[in-house]
Structures are given as C-alpha cells and as structure tokens.
C-alpha cells in the first residue's frame, strides 16, 4: 500500500544506518564489529584519502517482525558503496556466520557501484567470495534478500551478487545492471547509451523495468516502511529450496526464451510493449501499486 507522501521516509536519501533503523524492529539491531572496534581502510590512507570507520558497510543482527535476521547495509555515500578489502570481508564474515547460526534471513541492503578501484584486486576477489558465500548461505537454507533502492543502485559485481540472492525487493528509484551507463557511453559512444538521458537510464536499468521483466520479486515505494513490509512479505511467501539441476534448467530455458524474443530491443518501451503492456508510455507515470496491478494483468 502507498503511504501518504508526507509520511514517507525516503530510502534513496537515507544513510545505511538510517535504513537499518527503519527496516528492523525498533531497538533490535546489534552491530558486528562496531566502528569503535574497527579501523578505516589503510589502502585509502596510502592513497591520501580519508576512510570510514565501518569501511562503508554496516553488518549485524536484529529482528524483522520478530524473526531473527542478519543485515548487511552498504553506504552509498562513501565512495559509491564500493567493495574494498575490509568492506568485502565484513560481508563475507556475516554470510558465513549465517550458515552456522541460521537466522530466518539475511537482508542485504545493496547500494554499490561494485569494486572499489582504489583496492581493485582485493575488491574483485572479495566480490567473488561474496558470490560464493551468498550461495553457501542459501544452500544452508538461509534466504538472502537483496533490497535495492539507494543512490548507487546495484552495479558491477554487486549487480551479479544481487541476482544470486533469493529475491530482490526494489523501488522505482532503484537501479540494477552490470555496467554503468556512464561506462558504456565513455567506451562505446553517446549513441550507444546517453548516460545523461535520465529517463532512458531508468527505462533500461530502473526498478519498474526490472520488476516488469521478472528480474525483481517485489516493487515497493521509496519509503523505509515500504521496504520493511516488502522484505517481510517476500519472506512470508518464500521457502529456500536447495540448488538443483531442475531449477537451473528451468532458469536456463526462461533466459534463452527471453533472449530469443527481445535481443534486438534497446529501450524499455519496446520490451514493455512486447510483454503486452497496452500503453508503454504510461509506465514511468504509474505509482508502484498500479504498476504491480499492471504486471499481474499481463499475459504470461
């Protein structure tokens, strides 16, 4: 349900710590490796840059509607939520802990452009470790839910990590992709992707497009309470099945069908029309409830 606009607290604008505060049951959050017990990245200091005590990610445990959960929250305002050595190790440690302690879920608040270039090799290997750790947690029966709605979206390796999670809860403001539009424009030219065309960027990478295409499980408003109820709703309807050949065969078929049907399209408007949306131009104007209703009415 839509909360009245005036009562919303924007997820997009909130810090990682404020998101945790709005997401979990009041007062339930306990941080693993608190800032006072931690150190900023020495690799950034070596490059003459100030670090952050938590290295841009907050990890810990708490409760979501009384269920015990773990939470990982990236801070998009700190170097684009990028994954460096300490940042990555905190995430991996939390996921490994989840394998043993088996909380009801790990909520993964992704807000990241991917690898931190200042620590590029450590960051790339760390993302690979996160990928395996997410799959290990899921194989142990612990759902990992990605929440995407921050200013940095989920890009690069963190876009891959998001798609390895049990499901993604996204807002219209959320973006999910591999290469950033700026990177594509820089390398391939503005005619391939005009990164300054914000409407186009959202039609290609934005939350509504990903939801309509079935890449995200839920679309919610840009509101802390909406993400909270979205995460709870996802978990209510989800049982983590172990990895299986049958499930991956089925995903393989769906991805092949999609590629065969839509490979030549370059704009969300074209794909939405092909999906059966009668008025694709209206999609950017719909609020999240109406978009969810629209998706439910599409031919399958």
């Amino acid at each position, binding site marked *: 349900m839509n909360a009245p606009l005036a009562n919303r607290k924007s997820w997009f604008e909130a810090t990682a*710590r404020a998101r945790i505060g709005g997401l979990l049951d009041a007062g339930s959050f306990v941080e693993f490796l608190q800032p006072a017990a931690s150190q900023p990245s020495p690799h950034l200091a070596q490059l003459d840059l*100030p670090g952050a005590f938590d290295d841009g990610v907050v990890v810990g445990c708490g409760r979501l509607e009384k269920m015990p959960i773990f939470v990982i929250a990236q801070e998009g305002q700190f170097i684009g939520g990028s994954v460096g050595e300490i940042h990555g190790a905190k995430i991996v440690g939390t996921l490994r802990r989840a394998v043993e302690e088996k909380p009801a879920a790990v909520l993964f608040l992704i807000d990241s452009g991917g690898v931190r270039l200042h620590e590029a090799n450590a960051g790339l290997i760390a993302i690979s470790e996160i990928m395996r750790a997410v799959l290990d947690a899921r194989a142990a029966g612990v759902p990992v839910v990605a929440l995407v709605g921050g200013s940095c979206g989920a890009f690069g390796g963190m876009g891959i990590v998001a798609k390895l999670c049990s499901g993604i809860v996204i807002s219209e403001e959320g973006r999910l992709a591999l290469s950033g539009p700026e990177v594509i424009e820089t390398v391939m030219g503005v005619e391939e992707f005009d990164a300054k065309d914000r409407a186009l960027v959202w039609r290609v990478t934005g939350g509504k497009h990903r939801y309509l295409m079935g890449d995200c499980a839920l679309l919610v408003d840009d509101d802390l309470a909406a993400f909270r109820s979205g995460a709870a709703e996802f978990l209510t309807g989800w049982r983590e099945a172990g990895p299986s050949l049958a499930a991956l065969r089925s995903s393989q078929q769906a991805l092949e069908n999609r590629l065969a049907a839509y490979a030549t399209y370059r704009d969300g408007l074209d794909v939405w029309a092909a999906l059966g949306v009668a008025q694709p131009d209206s999609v950017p104007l719909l609020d999240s409830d109406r978009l969810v209703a629209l998706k439910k009415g599409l031919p399958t």
Partner: protein
Amino acid sequence: METLEFRFASHPAGPAADPALCGVVGSGNLEILIRAGDDPAACQLSIKTSARGFGDTWRAVLGDFAAAHAAGGTTVAINDMGATPAVVTLRLAQALAEYQGGAQ
C-alpha cells in the same frame, strides 16, 4: 589528506556507556566517532580531512564546540570529506547528544 590533532579544555561530559558514531564520509560531509577519553577536563580530537590547509578553521570551529558544550573526558575522531564549518558544528552537537544517550 591532512591529519590534525587538537586538545581543548572543556567541562566534563556526563558519563556514557558506549561510543557514538554520527554522519557519513561522503562529499561535503563527515563522520564523527566519540568515545571516552582519559582526561575528564579535556576534549581530545583527531581529524583526517581530504581538504588541506584548513587547520586554523578547524581549530576555531572545534574550540568553539569545546567551549560551548561539556565535552570533557571524550576522545573525538573525525573523517572528513570537505564538510563546511556549519556541517561540522551540527554533526559535533549531534554526536555528543547521541553519546550522552540523547535521541538521534
């Protein structure tokens, strides 16, 4: 980056159980970590800032803070990405309030 250290006399702050963190190291912003220090009559501050050459401004802003608030007995660590003096003053007050158990 520049590293600065200051120490100001300040009235003793009330006792607090836990360290407090306030703010984010983002463009034009800073984070402040306050924890217990060893001298109840002084506030000890260390700053890492991306903007070089503003030592005098920091001394003035932090000195005003130590004079206006009871911040004795605390150690303050700051990571700064070019916050303005107004933002620094605001965050210091927030951090101290949180340290002493005030609402966020």
